[in-house]
């Protein structure tokens, strides 16, 4: 008779699951070689925003926390680049990355502590007030943060051109993707899942759920900040808009369209959002209207997301 952990562990299936990842990775690596720079650009933007969506889903899909203010971390990453590189303080990519992670970690620890004092809708509201706090602060603090116009003068790290920058982002994405995968599969991730499924039960099993949610919040913040950092390097600007609710809205929509029960879902969903945004914006100015309609359509007809429906179909 197999021992208990063996019967529960799904290790044997791991090799089977590696295959799709391998294929997707090969595909993404070869994109610059076979497609136009337009497509490469879209993929790049998708990958950057995926940092935001995946981390957003770490909170929503895996921990049951809906954070409206997730853009706070995106903006922090972006402004770290703006203040260090845009102002000419340093050119060292790794130093900037390190500082972004450190600063975001601290701010997340502070925000998370306060936000997690509340539950449900109020948690969502409080996190929104955090991103808005940062947004209005950077808008007013013109001397330091460039005010409404933000910070510019940001050169790409290692003076990379667009294609090489794509590879940098791709590598970063893959690394973070697997870190998150490991996190979710770990003990820590399982408990987060339990908290999402039934927090009161988890408490009655003796777990201090607050600690888990707190760390999830901090990790999610750090991952989103990396995305914001990469986007500031790409676009060459850090602006107050980076803290806006509309940024968080993109993460949310991407997560929903792709499916919040899987790690890759938000990535796919983000691709859809980025693609639609680019495509539709060439025909009309009313992208906001379309995106709003997408929200409503998704919640009415398409709640499980792409991967959600795939999973259901797989089980038949």
């Amino acid at each position, binding site marked *: 008779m197999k021992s208990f952990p063996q019967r529960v562990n799904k290790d044997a299936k791991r090799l089977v699951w590696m295959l799709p990842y391998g294929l997707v990775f090969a595909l993404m690596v070869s994109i610059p070689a076979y497609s136009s720079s337009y497509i490469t650009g879209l993929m790049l933007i998708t990958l950057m925003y995926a940092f935001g969506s995946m981390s957003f889903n770490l909170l929503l899909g895996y921990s049951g926390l809906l954070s409206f203010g997730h853009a706070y971390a995106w903006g922090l990453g972006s402004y770290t680049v703006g203040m260090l590189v845009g102002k000419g303080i340093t050119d060292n990519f790794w130093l900037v990355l390190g500082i972004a992670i450190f600063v975001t970690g601290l701010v997340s620890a502070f925000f998370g502590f306060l936000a997690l004092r509340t539950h449900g809708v*109020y948690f969502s509201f409080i996190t929104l007030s955090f991103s808005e706090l940062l947004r209005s602060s950077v808008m007013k603090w013109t001397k330091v943060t460039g005010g409404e116009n933000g910070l510019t003068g940001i050169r790409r790290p290692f003076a990379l051109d667009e294609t090489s920058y794509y590879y940098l982002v791709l590598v970063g994405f893959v690394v973070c993707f697997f870190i998150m995968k490991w996190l979710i599969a770990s003990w820590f991730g399982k408990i987060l899942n339990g908290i999402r499924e039934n927090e009161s039960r988890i408490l009655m099993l003796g777990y201090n759920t607050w600690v888990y949610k707190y760390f999830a919040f901090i990790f999610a913040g750090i991952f989103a900040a990396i995305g914001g950092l990469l986007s500031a390097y790409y676009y060459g600007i850090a602006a107050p808009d980076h803290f806006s609710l509309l940024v968080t809205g993109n993460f949310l929509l991407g997560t929903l369209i792709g499916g919040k029960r899987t790690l890759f879902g938000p990535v796919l969903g983000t691709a859809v959002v980025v693609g639609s945004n680019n495509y539709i914006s060439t025909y009309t100015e009313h992208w906001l209207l379309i995106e709003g*309609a997408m929200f*409503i359509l998704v919640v009415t007809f398409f709640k499980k997301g792409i991967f959600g429906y795939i999973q259901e179909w797989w089980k038949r």
Partner: protein
Amino acid sequence: MALIIQMLNALSFAAILFLLASGLCLMLSLMNVVNLAHGSLYMLAGYIGYSVGQWADSFLMALVTGISTTALISFLMDRIFFRYFKDHLEQILLTFGFIYIFQDVARTLWHGNYHFVSAPAILSGSIHILGAVFPMFRLCVIGIGVFVALGLWLLQEKTKIGALIRAGVDDSLMVQALGVDINRIFTLVFTMAGALAGLSGVLGSVLIGAYIGADLDILIFAVVVIVIGGLGTLQGAMVGSVLIGFAEVFGRAFLPEFAHFFVYGVMAVILATRPSGLLGRTS
């Protein structure tokens, strides 16, 4: 003297906030509905109030049009959407979508310009009491705020409708079994909340103006009011509005560079010490 002016500003801002926050709070605590687009109603009412006010040269027309429009929108949102979407997450996503749509509408029709509604001529002066000068309009706004606060409190605590609403949230099946059409009552509350948002929007646009982003700005304030005042209690919204009104106005007076810092500071302190808000209930 300047102190009194600032206090009036704080109180009138508090009144505007309360008118908006009360609707949000009613929907949340009484009907368990999350409506993020409530701030959008404020913005729309402000813009509509401006346009109608300009066209008809009448503040009254502006007010009436603004309020009826938002009340109608609320009515439709309840009938078409909230009746079927009872889950919080669904409501959040839905109203998120509405925020985008309303923003697009505002951008298209008013091009994102900053507009103010003109106060009515009879109220644009000041009155002198005991040697101090009080702008009439602000006094009126404060008066309206107090009037509405009293009315809502009476409705919630003292009337049959209020009791029915509270009962309906807890046990809608039971209430329906008693022969009450709970859906009709919910629609009524919704429409009323929408009307209040419209009132807040038109009045607010006289003082603060209407602009793209006002929807989110005022929503944030309303949210902070509800959270610190006491999760979901009307009295909490009243206290919260006054507190935030003062925090914002006096904060702006002393430290204009750190926008809203006092507001967030108050929120942080209260969250850290009393997470369920000043008047909230802990279970």
